[in-house]
Structure formats: C-alpha cells, structure tokens
C-alpha cells in the first residue's frame, strides 16, 4: 500500500488517539479526573487540614508510647479460631498506647479517645495486628462519615469548640453518630491508660479447625481496678502517659482478652452499634505489658497497626471501616516514613532492668 501524506497523518492520529486513551485511563485510575471522589490521599489530607501537618508522626493517634510484653493464651480460644495465638502458650507482642487526634504534642485530656494497638508475633512470621480504643462503640459507621466528622467537629479558633451549627448538620446527616455518642457518654473514661478497657469495635470472623465460622468482636479488659477520674490537682500535660509509665515501672500490667461471639442477625457492618449484652464472651488469655519505650526506630513507632493484617483463622467481616482503615493507615505510614522524625512527646525514663520479652526487629 502506498505511503502518502494522508495515510501517514491518519495513522499517526490513530496512534496518538490510542496513546491518549491509554494514558488517560492510567491517570483516571489514579483519580486525576475525579476530584470529588474520596481518595485515600484526600482522606489523609483531611487529617492534616484539621490537625496540622506534623512530620514523621501518624496522622491520627499521633501521640503515643511504645510497649512490649506477652500474650498468654489459656487455650479456650481454639474452640473459636484455629489461629496459633489461641493455642495454650505465650506469644510476644509489640504494642502502643496512644490518644486520638493528629497532634503529637497535644495535652492529655479525659475525654480524648485512648488507643491500644497490639502486634502479636505468631510463629513462622505470621502476625495479627489490632488497634483498639477505649470507647464502647465507634462514632462512625462508614468512612465518609468519619471524613466529614473530622471537619464538622474541628474546634473554631474563637471559642476553641466546634461550630454547633456544623455539628448539628453533621449529626442530622449521620444519626448513627448521635446514637453512638449517647452510648459513649454513658461509660465515662477510667482514671488512666493502665486501667482502661480497649475494644476492637469492628466485627471479624473466626474460623476454628473444624471449619466453623462465627462473627466476633473483642475487648481487652483491665485487671487494674477501673476507677473514674477523681477531681484532684491540675494534672500535668502528659498525665495519662506519666501514670502509665509509673505503673509499668512498678510491675507488669495485665488485661484479660475477651472474645464476644455474635449470633445470626447481629450486625457485622456497623461499629456504631453494640451487640446485645447477653452475647457469649470467651476469655482466651491475658495480655501482659511489662515494658514501655520512648518511640524510636525499630519499636512500635515503625509499625503500621493495620487491623487487616490477620493470621489464618481470623478474617475480615463486611464492616466498611476495615478496608478504609487499611487504606488510610497505609497512606499515613507512607507519608510519615518519608518525612524527617522528631522526638516524641512521651519520654520514658530509666526503667528497672528486666528481661526484654521481644523487640520488633526479631522478625526475619
């Protein structure tokens, strides 16, 4: 076929068209043409918008301290899940206590949500990561609600409190958050991190060695007596963490690990709603925290407590928050690991020399 100018130009135009579609599709997959879609980056941008950008720190639960210890299983969990963790015996853990919010030097406050994140180091490189909070239900059912709540409840510069009109509009749009906040207000926080319960909140699925699967939620219940906050002298800026450090220096602190087993019909996709109080609870062992460390390279500072990192025997439910947490935590991790690091607010002083049960870098 003869090559004339017309066929060449038509051919080149066709190649250009195909290439434009190709590149356009690639950029489209990356969210370039959908500025209104809630992408992971935009979700994490919202944290930075509300809390400021603090290089090297988590975008949420920025203030925290690393911990280490061991989980001692009593074997009862094997009836529910075949995960190696539930075999009678001990599993080393890396953990992190935190308070919510994206400001790494914020003053502790009773009403601030507290977090306990745990990485169980299972045999053969398997891991279970879970990030729990002290409130009995979560404030948001869907990721979009969480995203909008961050801005709606942002303190206004003048008053230091959220704009009531924005909060009211938000709660009208997300009534489940209003219901959840009513439940949360009925269980006031304990006096310290060391005697707080910590709840998994999202539902998961446990499968045992017989192949039976049940929906579950879990709670770490403190063995230290839970006492409400007393009205004493004005507390120091880091009083929650200072009390935790003092407690662990005296000796190990324990939590009983309780698995709540759901029944058919219990919602597994709504973390704002508690299951009925009469659901079966199985105590599967004890979490022991025996040392704390200032956040530093190699300890819990460097762990992304992504709750979707699960061993065999534990699986995700249909809760939409779980997928979102995985995506947003990963984005937070990818940002903070590429930034310069500054020392953490919570500094752990000299501790009595005891055996270090574990450290993060013993993974292969």
């Amino acid at each position, binding site marked *: *076929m003869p*090559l004339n100018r017309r*066929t*060449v130009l038509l*051919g*080149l135009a*066709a*190649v250009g068209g*195909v*290439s434009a579609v*190709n*590149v356009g*599709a*690639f*950029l489209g*997959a*990356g*969210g370039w043409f959908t500025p209104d*879609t*809630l*992408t*992971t*980056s935009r*979700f994490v941008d919202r944290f930075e918008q509300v809390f400021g950008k603090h290089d090297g720190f988590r975008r949420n639960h920025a203030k925290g301290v690393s911990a280490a210890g061991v989980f001692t299983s009593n074997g009862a969990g094997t009836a529910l899940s075949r995960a190696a963790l539930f075999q009678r015996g001990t599993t080393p853990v890396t953990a992190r206590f935190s308070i919510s919010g994206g400001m790494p030097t914020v003053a502790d406050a009773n009403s601030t949500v507290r977090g306990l994140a745990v990485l169980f180091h299972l045999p*053969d*490189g*398997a*891991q279970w990561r879970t990030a729990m909070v002290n409130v009995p239900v979560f404030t948001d059912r869907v*990721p979009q609600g969480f995203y909008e709540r961050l801005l709606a409840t942002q303190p206004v510069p003048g008053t230091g409190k959220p704009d009531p009109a924005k909060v009211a509009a938000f709660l009208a749009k997300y009534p489940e958050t209003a219901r959840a906040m009513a439940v949360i207000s009925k269980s006031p926080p304990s006096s310290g991190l060391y005697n707080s319960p910590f709840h998994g909140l999202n539902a998961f699925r446990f499968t045992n060695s017989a192949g039976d699967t049940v929906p579950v939620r879990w709670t770490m219940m403190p063995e230290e007596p839970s006492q409400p906050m007393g009205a004493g002298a004005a507390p120091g800026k880091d009083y929650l963490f200072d009390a935790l450090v003092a407690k662990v220096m005296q000796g190990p602190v324990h939590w009983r690990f309780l698995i709540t087993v759901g029944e058919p019909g219990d919602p597994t996709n709504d973390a704002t709603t508690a299951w009925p109080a009469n659901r079966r609870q199985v105590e599967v062992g004890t979490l022991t925290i025996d040392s704390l460390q200032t956040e530093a*390279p*190699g300890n819990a500072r*460097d*762990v*992304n407590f*992504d709750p*979707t*990192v699960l061993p*065999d025997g534990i699986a*995700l439910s249909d809760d*939409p928050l*779980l*997928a*979102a947490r*995985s*995506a*947003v935590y*990963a*984005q937070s*991790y*990818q940002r903070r*690991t*590429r930034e310069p690091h500054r020392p953490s607010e919570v500094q752990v002083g000299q501790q009595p020399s005891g055996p270090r049960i574990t450290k*993060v*870098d013993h*993974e*292969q």
Partner: protein
Amino acid sequence: MSSEPTPTTTPSATPAPVRFTRVARLLHWTMAVMVVAILFIGAFMVTSVGDFRFLVTVHEPLGIAILLFVLVRIGWRLTHTPPPLPPGMVRLDRLAAKYSERLLYALLLVQPLIGWAMVSASGEPIVLFGSLYLPHIAPQNITLFADLLRAHIAAAYLLYLTFAAHLAGVLVHTIVIRDRVLDRMAFWRAPGYGSEAPPR
C-alpha cells in the same frame, strides 16, 4: 482470522520472515496482560479507600508471578535468537527497539524485587493466597522502606511510560509504516510468517 491455508512459498527477493518462537510469543502476551493489569491495579489501589486491601492481595501475587515469568523469559531470550527486525527499519528505530527491550526486561525484573523488599522493610508479612508466607528479603527499617517506596513509585511510572512508548511504537510501525513488525509476535495467521526463529 483467515482460515485459508498458509500460502505456499512464493518466490521472493527477500528471505522469508520469521516469528518469535511459540514460547516467546506465549510469554510475551501472558506477561503483557499481567503487566498492564498490575500497573492499572497499582494506580487504582493507592487511591481507593474501599478496595485497597483487596487489591493488595491481588497485586502481591501478581507481582511475584511476573517476577517468575520474567526470569523464565530472560532465560529463553538468552538461549534463542529473536527474528530479525523488518528490513528498511531506520537506525534510530533499531536502537530504540534494542534498548527499550532491555529496559523492559530490567524493569520487569527489578520492580517486583523492589516491591517485595519494600513490604519486607515495613515488617508486614507477605502472604499469598491467604496462607503462603514469603520470606522477608530486606531488614525491617522505615528509612529503607521509604527509599524503596520512592523507588517503587518511580519504577512504576517508568515502566508505564516504557509500555506506552512500546505500544505507540508498534502501532506506528503497524498502521503508518506498515512493515508488519507486529506479525513477528502474532498468533494469528500472517501470510508468509510460518516458521519460528531457530534455537541459538
């Protein structure tokens, strides 16, 4: 495609053109699907709040599969002579073909290794199909993780651009220059392309 029998050898001034071996063509098209898929999955995965975790469970085994395929392919490439480029191809195009091929092989080999090392450096387990744990190939270190993440992103864009250029180049040769360069990699019947490249 035409179901006519392959034309009998007709007298020709030029030697009969040859295709890549059947194995090379199979590797090429299988990997083409896998590589385009993983590039688009990667681009969408990092933006998707709802599908990130699921897509990671696709991305990781697909990346490992590409690594295994490219090792086989490099072995095959080193032991078999590819068919010659069409006669009349200009020097610049010959150089582009030669070095873009090497660049693609290098990227397809290095990029899965960077990804594997990156997840290793994060300390997260690498689990394929729910229960197959891959060993970590780098120490847990967030500075290393950050560098490998930058490298993985840069190599992904470079790989995508190389693929886009490869596709555009083949299209220019096929529909503008019409030198039938694509027939060398084709499975369909192309008149005159009956034989395979001989083993080296």
